[in-house]
């Protein structure tokens, strides 16, 4: 963008931003990457939006747009939302990062909250959830439950978030079951229920009796149910319809408290750009009910682990831990720093196979 256009847009933006703030109720926008009926990632963000509506009643108006592709379309949608007078906009996918910052620069009076990103500005904050804490609890249960000692893992794309989950689950499964082995299938899709079903079936056929998934559909649950003695965990949403077997627990994205909190901050004019990375403790990550298919002692251990993580006594990445190639990553008692976790691109020692690059 050359200097002249920059100035022109800035002037244009300031004029409009002034107009936007001159209204009574607070307008909160949400931009979703999938349809709100995806039953997973976007579904849970929309639940958060509904919670905001319920909490504030008439004081807050929410608007949303679903299935917004990342990139050029996102920038347009965001601009139009800001032009329509939104005071706060949540952009709920990593790929909205640059569009969010571009639009935020044009609308200094509108606040933005970008999920899972790492770039911030005066009016752009970021937030994300420490799902790996839930994965640690899952890994513990999985390690105890498996009899074949083979745990299947359906992964989406090799990004730090997913790799972190695999590592956290593996570390804690291995801790309670040294013979455990992970088989990872990279589905290379965010969304293809049929492929997830095939992946789950392939893992089960190769001896896995616990399936973990980093994809959002219930297809693996159904495959496990059909196979009989296979355990699964709900992902993103509770997937309680498959409880008590095969779904024995779940990791639930719970955005409602955070969204209510941030909207309140905007109403009180106390909103400031910051970086939130909350886990079980703050309630952003919830562990769904552990069913009776899990032996009582295992359940108790899992709940204790969850408790320790929640109150900060225990960090799921605590040394001694080595990387896959045997080099030392964390010394005895050392815990991983957030920077390394955010950019995690390696397996821990013991995992087989390679991360696709």
């Amino acid at each position: 963008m050359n200097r002249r256009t920059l100035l022109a847009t800035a002037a244009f933006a300031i004029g409009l931003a002034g107009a936007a703030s001159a209204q009574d109720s607070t307008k909160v926008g949400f931009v979703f990457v999938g349809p709100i009926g995806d039953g997973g990632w976007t579904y849970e963000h929309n639940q958060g939006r509904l919670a905001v509506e319920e909490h504030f009643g008439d004081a807050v108006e929410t608007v949303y747009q679903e299935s917004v592709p990342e990139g050029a379309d996102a920038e347009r949608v965001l601009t139009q939302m800001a032009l329509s007078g939104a005071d706060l906009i949540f952009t709920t996918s990593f790929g909205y990062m640059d569009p969010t910052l571009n639009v935020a620069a044009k609308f200094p009076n509108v606040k933005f909250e970008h999920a899972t990103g790492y770039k911030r500005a005066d009016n752009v904050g970021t937030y994300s959830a420490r799902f790996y804490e839930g994965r640690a609890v899952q890994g513990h249960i999985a390690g105890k439950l498996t009899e074949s000692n083979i745990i299947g893992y359906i992964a989406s794309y090799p990004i730090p978030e997913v790799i972190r989950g695999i590592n956290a689950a593996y570390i804690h499964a291995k801790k309670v079951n040294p013979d455990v082995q992970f088989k990872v299938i990279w589905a290379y899709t965010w969304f293809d229920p049929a492929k997830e079903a095939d992946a789950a079936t392939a893992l089960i056929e190769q001896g896995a009796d616990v399936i973990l998934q980093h994809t959002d559909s219930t297809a693996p649950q159904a495959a496990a149910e059909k196979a009989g003695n296979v355990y699964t965990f709900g992902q993103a949403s509770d997937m309680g319809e498959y409880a008590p077997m095969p779904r024995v627990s779940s990791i639930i994205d719970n955005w409602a408290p955070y969204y209510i909190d941030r909207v309140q901050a905007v109403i009180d004019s106390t909103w400031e750009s910051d970086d939130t990375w909350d886990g079980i403790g703050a309630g952003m990550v919830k562990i769904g009910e552990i069913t009776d298919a899990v032996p009582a002692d295992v359940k108790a251990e899992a709940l204790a682990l969850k408790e320790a993580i929640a109150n900060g006594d225990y960090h799921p990445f605590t040394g001694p831990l080595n990387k896959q190639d045997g080099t030392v990553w964390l010394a005895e008692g050392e815990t991983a720093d957030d920077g390394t976790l955010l950019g995690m691109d390696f397996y821990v020692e013991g995992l087989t196979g390679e991360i696709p690059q």
Partner: protein
Amino acid sequence: MDLSAINPVVLTASLMVAATPILLAALGELVVEKSGVLNLGVEGMMITGAICGFATAVETGSPTLGFLAAMAGGAALSMVFGVLTQFLMSNQVATGLALTLFGLGLSALLGQGYVGVKPPATDRLDLGPLADIPVLGRILFSHDLVVYVSLALVAGIWAVLRFTRAGLILRAVGENHDAAHALGYKVVRIRLMAIAFGGAMAGLGGAYLSLVRVPQWTEGMTAGAGWIALAIVVFASWRAGRVLLGAYLFGGVVVLQLNLQAAGVAVPVELLSASPYLVTILVLVVMSADRGRAALNAPACLGRVFHASS
């Protein structure tokens, strides 16, 4: 890497299930194209069938009724295409694509209340001792009814097209609609029936996804299966037997590549993910190079507008 973990028998049984939705939709499209009509709306009809079947099965508790409703839904949607292309003589390629767009939207609207609902289970057909036969039992006698229906349809469509008068008329309409018309056949009516059949089959394939294979409802859950079904018809050069081959080949490579990954084979994942498409292209190249004139199998009037001028 542990290839011994892959059991070919189990793999075969899985690929049959994996391929069934595409197989059903492709069989329907085969009949449509044989009548000289190109309906690119398979994806839209599949997903409409998926939600019609799902909703009906959930409301009534009966998967069978669900499958029937899916066929009705797919056929009903296909009639939009039928009316536009047969009576209003619109362009088939564009109308088919519009049908996909419309079907994706419509299904999502219909399905709003069905996210996160578990459908009633579709039972495997109990074939008693047959299922216990080693190897064959697992491959052939351990499936649900729809898998057998799909196989029966392959044989049925092949036989009808090849040996019956109805099949002959259908092919005549597809090869030369003017001549068929001159002979007194109702070209438009025959084509409408073919289109409805194609819609019903696509709907059934969609419901197999939402009721058996996945089973759940989410927006856009067919994720491109309809397009693959279209490709399979071309791959098969418009023969029922080769539709089966194509669908099982494609489904087989999908299942195999996931199994190879699980077994830890050191092949780049991107390549494995692309392999079903690459293998399908390769096999087709080999077959068409071999026989030279494969393309000539396409019905001569495929996609052409028919208007009875006399």
